[in-house]
């Protein structure tokens, strides 16, 4: 990327060649939604990670995590600011994806348009091609 005008920050820790550092980050939400604040923290973390523009974030709801994706409009989810986080993430062009098989086997539906549904195989490929995977 040397010639396209990307700058170098030589005095900022190890982030020497910023232009080379586009990172694909996969945040995985796989646990039941309301037993801890963990899933809310995962979304807050996803929002935070977008601050560094060189991070390209995906949020993947798999296994029991799809309960979080399916229940975003219920009072408990609102209490934990989940809808607000999801709206922010969409605004920041973060992809939010829920696992099709997990939804089917749990007879769940996604009502929020921010979240797209994809087969597990596709999600697995996203995980394995990510530079950084952060499971919650």
């Amino acid at each position, binding site marked *: 990327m040397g010639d396209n005008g990307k700058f170098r920050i030589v005095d900022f820790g190890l982030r020497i060649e910023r232009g080379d550092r586009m990172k694909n980050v996969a945040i995985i939400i796989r646990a039941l939604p309301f037993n801890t604040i963990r899933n809310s923290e995962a979304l807050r973390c996803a929002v935070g*990670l977008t*601050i*560094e523009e060189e991070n390209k974030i995906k949020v993947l709801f798999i296994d029991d995590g799809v309960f979080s994706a399916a229940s975003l409009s219920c009072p408990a989810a609102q209490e934990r600011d989940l809808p607000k986080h999801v709206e922010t993430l969409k605004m920041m062009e973060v992809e939010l994806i829920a696992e099709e098989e997990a939804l089917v086997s749990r007879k769940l539906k996604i009502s929020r348009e921010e979240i797209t549904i994809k087969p597990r195989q596709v999600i697995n490929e996203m995980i394995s091609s990510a530079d950084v995977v*952060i499971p*919650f």
Partner: protein
Amino acid sequence: MKLCILLTTSPEDQNSIVVIKLVQAALEGGHTAGLFLMDDGVYNVVKKNKISIRFAGLMTKGASIALCGHTAEERGVGAEDCLSGVKYAGQYELACMVNEADRFLTFGG
């Protein structure tokens, strides 16, 4: 190589010991290591918590440690309660770490 680790569990979890040993090994191998603590993970660097001395040791050897001030505040853990040298930071710090790291690992529940 720069190794960065996100730790979100309290010292009750074995994660703390694994992280300490990983960071030690990385530093001894001549690598750089950064830790980010979030949620109950912030308790690892509370001075009065016995395990914190081991995290202090990592900083002496060159590791950098930052934590999520928001989750610390929720727990009533102020900057003055933490080891000196720990950066009382925010998710921006984590975003940068994720971007800078050659290897990024998460230790959660």
